[in-house]
């Protein structure tokens, strides 16, 4: 399964990026991206804008495994939700500023990712997906039973949002967005660094041909565990910010539907594109938010239809398709110049 899934994306990655370091267009696009990030809460209701970034980083963490290592994790809700609860507990009981709590949550996600990763990376494809799903379900039932700690199905409510006594950030979602966005941005940069590093190159090699990577002397399993833990940490960072933003953590965060939603966002945005996750999250979260007040009763029907259409018509996702169009345009122009 994973071979089929990755076969179509590695063609893209094998080609050198059109936007090389010297190309000014690269910086124009980076700046445009940052401008969108800054302006988002002016266009969209701030708590919803925060949700988009959280789900975006969550999707990026899944893409790190799915697109760059060829592992489809169907249990990432364990790290997102585990961190949400842990962040909430730290913030509630110790009253620390929320960035500290979120980091604590992310570290917790990485800690639980180590044994889960150790046991699951030995399998690939559907087996890997099922093993991760099983662990996530385990965590879901633990959280459901440990009601003294988690509040059971009532959820962990009223998580404080302490931030060094700066009241605007603590109470107003608009200002909170910028602190949350800064933390998400750090996560995105980590993911970007991982992908564009020698380590990331090895991951791609492991994805495309594990046997050859092993023959070259790379410890394939160790690389997989490491990226699994990094991915869990990023999912945890996103989940922590999400919990602080909503001021609660509920069982919904650990539910398998959450794992499904984030895979959907990743595929929608484009597997193996990294940035696609943010675009996918933008589409899914805004759509969900819009449909919630639209009075329309078949919300699942619409998101499902969009998913089917994207998978059938734009197999590389939104970002992947846009990138391919741009690449074709640039290459054609270069070709014409050479003539």
């Amino acid at each position: 399964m994973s071979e089929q899934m990755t076969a179509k994306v590695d063609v893209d990655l094998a080609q050198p990026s059109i936007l090389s370091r010297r190309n000014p267009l690269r910086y124009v696009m980076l700046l445009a991206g940052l401008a969108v990030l800054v302006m988002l809460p002016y266009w969209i209701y701030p708590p919803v804008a925060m949700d988009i970034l959280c789900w975006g980083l969550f999707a990026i963490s899944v893409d790190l495994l799915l697109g760059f290592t060829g592992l489809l994790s169907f249990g990432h809700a364990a790290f997102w939700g585990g961190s949400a609860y842990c962040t909430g507990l730290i913030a509630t009981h110790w009253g620390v500023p929320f960035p500290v709590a979120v980091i604590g949550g992310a570290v917790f996600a990485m800690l639980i990712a180590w044994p889960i990763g150790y046991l699951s990376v030995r399998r690939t494809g559907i087996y890997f997906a099922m093993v991760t799903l099983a662990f996530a379900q385990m965590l879901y039932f633990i959280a459901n039973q440990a009601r003294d700690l988690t509040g059971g199905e009532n959820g962990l409510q009223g998580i404080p949002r302490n931030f060094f006594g700066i009241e605007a950030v603590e109470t107003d979602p608009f200002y909170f967005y910028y602190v949350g966005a800064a933390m998400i941005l750090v996560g995105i940069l980590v993911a970007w660094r991982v992908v564009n590093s020698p380590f990331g190159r090895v991951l791609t090699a492991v994805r495309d041909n594990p046997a050859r990577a092993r023959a070259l002397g790379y410890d394939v399993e160790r690389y997989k565990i490491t990226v699994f833990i990094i991915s869990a940490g990023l999912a945890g960072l996103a989940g922590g910010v999400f919990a602080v933003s909503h001021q609660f953590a509920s069982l919904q965060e650990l539910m398998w539907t959450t794992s499904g939603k984030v895979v959907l966002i990743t595929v929608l945005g484009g597997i193996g594109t990294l940035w696609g996750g943010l675009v996918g999250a933008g589409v899914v979260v805004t759509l969900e938010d819009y449909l919630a007040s639209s009075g329309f009763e078949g919300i699942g029907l619409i998101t499902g239809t969009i998913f089917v259409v994207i998978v059938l018509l734009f197999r590389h996702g939104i970002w992947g398709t846009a990138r391919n169009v741009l690449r074709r345009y640039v290459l054609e122009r270069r070709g014409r110049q050479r003539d």
Partner: protein
Amino acid sequence: MRSRTVQGTVAIAATASLALAACGGAGGPQSGGSSKLTDDKLVIGLLNDQSGVYKDLSGPNSKVAIEMAIEDYKAKYGDKAVAKDIEVVTADHQNKADIANSKAQEMYDRQKADIILDVPNSAAALAVATQAKNKKKLYINIGAGTTALTGASCNKYTFHWAYNTSVLARGTAGTITKAGGKKWNIVYPDYAFGQDMNKSFTKEITTAGGTVGQSIASPFPSDNFATFITKAGEGDPDVIGSMHAGGDLINFVKQFNQSSLKGKVQLAVGLMFITDIHSLGVDQFAGTQFTDAWYWNFDAQNKKWADRFKEKTNTRPSFAHAANYSAAMNYLEAVQEAGTDDADTIVGKLEGKKINDVFLRNGEIRKADHAVIHDVYLAKVKSSAPEEWDYEDIEKTIPASEAYGEANPACSMS
């Protein structure tokens, strides 16, 4: 080199954004107008499940109920009405607490909702209670059953109108035991709601002089209850109590009916809505006892309202519809009395108010924990329905004080 450039850009962008935010102040608090009503109108927000399992219980038809309240209010006060322009905004939380949370904030901040109504699903209900407290705006919960709303999570702006899980326990367990069903076996789903229900049922049964032979935990969710039903039949009990809800309840009852226990042992259910009976069919539930907060065919007053409701929706109202009507109506009355939509003033008007209306009988908005107490009913499912939705025989009215007991000691309003 490359990463340093990016970091620099990020730093600049972050600084710029903070500066922008400080100047723009788009999210800052806004001052109220000079009118008695903010924005010269009242906005009632309805936040519930409009596409999932609770769609029939409250869902879109609750909007119809609220509009009936507005109609009645306008008819009653005419030109003297304080609120002339009343708007209802709705959102579908899809049973997801995070969507409920964002939508509640949006309703209070952007859509200028003065009050939010309904919100089934306990995690969603509690999340909205936190927002009501933060924004200092009114919130009347109807659809959720958790006692935390009037307990640990209670606050000045949150009211709980229709029922809660301890009322169900007092109503069903207490009443049936006193009527002679002394020996109980309980089957409950093994998660917070089920454990709570088991605990409160056991307490009420023993207080009323009965005994609980076994409390059997079943995994949640589950579709095979055969072993648990067999086990529950051991020891020759008078009553088997099922604490399941929703899909689990339907499976449990189906399998109970197929077992040899049907007809020999009374089945009592912890949490059941008229919509559950409707979806499974009245014959499947026949003879089952449960506590209902309101029933449309109980008396002439209810029937009259239900007829009006049916004209508009072509269906009979559930207790949640009537409760939404009652909550909206009493809120509008309080606005009329206070002459303003200021939340603190309205809370003052509502607290301690004694109410008798189509939904609340011997009702009182209890000041101590904001539970709205009222008479509830022990119902028995009919063996056949004379007309669609006519499923219940009301066996006993349980007085408000008995059903609700003392104010929740876990609640502190400050």
